[in-house]
């Protein structure tokens, strides 16, 4: 196991270096001169040629590409993601300010989605092809077909404008958290329900289930200690991959509900052409995503030792 973790971590390091390179390239594909962007993002329009030249030198833009990448990367390793063009604050400080909000929103959506979809997926799998199964599968199908921005707009329309139950703009409170959480959790539960159900159904169809039932093992015991245990790795993978959806979705949802997390910060930075902040967020999202998926893989092996044994044999 330790050897495997070491191998994976080494691999992770290579991927992360490549990811950092792509992220650095993002700056390069941005149209225009970074020095000019830095000077004009504050609002001034006319910039003298000398000032531009000076800023370019300060930013190190006159150096070769790989040298620039190297110095950027060595900064990143030390936690320095550069400074915002807009207000000169360190990008890492800006990101960590929004992180708490995004974490709260993502976690509450994930918990809500799991609370809804886990019991329902067990129910629909066990009661396959009954009216309850059809109804919840249809609902999950609709949830899966609704883009999160549409859900937000529809929720706002029906709950805030029509019924006047909630404020339209999210304050940092439970009430404010409710709508963005729902908007993220609804499509997520739709997808979870569908994929969890498939995982559980696959296990239910295995011969060990009928074998245990024939031996007179109680059905709920088989369900909880065998079926769910064996479906768990698949379920964990689905949850791990959903982190990517949550990170991307947070940009849309936080912008709509003005929730001051990372997503809103990124959209504001896109509007202001504040590229270092966008770059920092992309790097952060990729690192989180890769790490979460590594953890799911490791949990996978912990739950199902057969995976490690199979690989050992090959």
């Amino acid at each position, binding site marked *: 196991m330790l050897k495997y973790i070491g191998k994976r971590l080494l691999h992770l390091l290579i*991927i*992360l270096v*490549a*990811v950092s390179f*792509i992220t650095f390239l*993002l700056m390069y*594909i*941005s*149209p225009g001169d970074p020095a000019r962007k830095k000077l004009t993002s504050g609002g001034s329009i006319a910039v003298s040629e000398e000032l531009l030249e000076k800023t370019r030198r300060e930013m190190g833009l006159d150096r070769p590409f790989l040298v620039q990448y190297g110095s950027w990367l060595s900064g990143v390793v030390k936690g320095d993601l550069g400074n915002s063009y807009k207000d000169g604050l360190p990008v890492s400080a800006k990101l960590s300010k929004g992180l708490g909000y995004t974490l709260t929103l993502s976690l509450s959506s994930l918990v809500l989605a799991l609370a809804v979809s886990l019991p329902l997926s067990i129910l629909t799998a066990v009661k396959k092809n009954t009216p309850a199964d059809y109804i919840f599968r249809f609902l999950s*199908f*609709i949830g*899966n*077909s*609704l*883009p*999160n*921005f*549409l859900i937000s*707009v*529809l929720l*706002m*329309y029906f709950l805030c*404008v029509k019924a006047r139950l909630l404020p339209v703009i999210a304050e940092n409170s439970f009430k404010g958290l409710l709508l963005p959480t729902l908007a993220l959790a609804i499509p997520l539960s739709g*997808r979870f329900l569908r*994929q969890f159900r*498939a995982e559980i159904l696959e296990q239910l169809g295995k011969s060990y289930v009928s074998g245990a039932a024939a031996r007179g093992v109680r059905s709920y015991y088989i369900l909880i200690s065998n079926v769910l245990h064996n479906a768990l790795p698949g379920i964990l*993978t*689905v949850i791990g*991959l959903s*982190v*990517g*959806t949550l*990170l*991307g*979705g947070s*940009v*849309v949802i936080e*912008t709509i509900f003005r929730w001051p997390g990372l997503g809103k910060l*990124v*959209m504001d930075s*896109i509007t202001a052409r504040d*590229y270092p902040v*966008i*770059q920092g*967020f*992309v790097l952060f*999202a*990729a690192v989180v*995503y*890769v790490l979460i998926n590594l953890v799911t893989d490791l949990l996978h092996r912990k739950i199902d030792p057969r995976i490690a044994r199979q690989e050992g044999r090959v």
Partner: protein
Amino acid sequence: MQKAKKKKRPGAVKLRFFLFLTIALVVFSLIAPLFAPHDPNATNPQTLNLAPCAEYPLGCDLYGRCVLSRILAGAGTSVFSAVALVALTFVIGTFAGMISGWYGGIADTLIMRIAEIFLAFPQMVLAIAVAGILGGGMGNAMLALGVTGWTLYARLARAQVMTLKEEPFVQAARLSGFGAFRIMFRTLLPNMAGPLIVNAATQLGTMMISLAGLSFLGIGVQEPKAEWGSMVAASRSYMQLAPWAVLAPAFAILITVMIFNYLGDCFRDYLDVEAEHE
């Protein structure tokens, strides 16, 4: 082996129905602008936020533009670009994956490493960053989603080629002296199309949602060009006065995505292969 299973599989009728519906939808999206009763971009101060009536069946938006005309004009952009994006990533990804699986060695390592790097980014995050940095436009939005989209097909095609490569019928084709490309496209491709098609059909809905999402954020299709996602965004602040201008494009998106997703499900049931988790 394939010939023996000639009897009709369940779900064939349903699949045909949704396939027909999808093709009809795509064709319609291309000719829909011709049916627009009004100029989709013509603003009219007299019809600002006008409620649906006989002349404007879906009402007017905040600039007095006919909502129905804009939905019809936007159909081409919203529906067709999603289909085109899936088709493009499908072709590129499948090709890369087949090369990777067939030749192995350096080509395989190179292609799969690149795929792996792009897979490290959450798709929507990278798409928002790329589209945001490049500035709006449908082309940039499609590029932003395409850079990660092809990896799905590449991995699938590679795995399929690797397993099929050693099959006797492929060996036979090789011994007959057929070239690598002939074997890949004439012998291998028909035998591995199932999982690829299921995933492509599932991606239709996903890509449609993502493209509309980028446009909604203002980094996809730009106003005044009609597109369903940006229509929702533009009319959002006037929801109290003119809910129809938001709800009409919203339901257009929902219904289209549902048809696409149904098609994906039908393909999956019919070919009996599971789609990859996203």
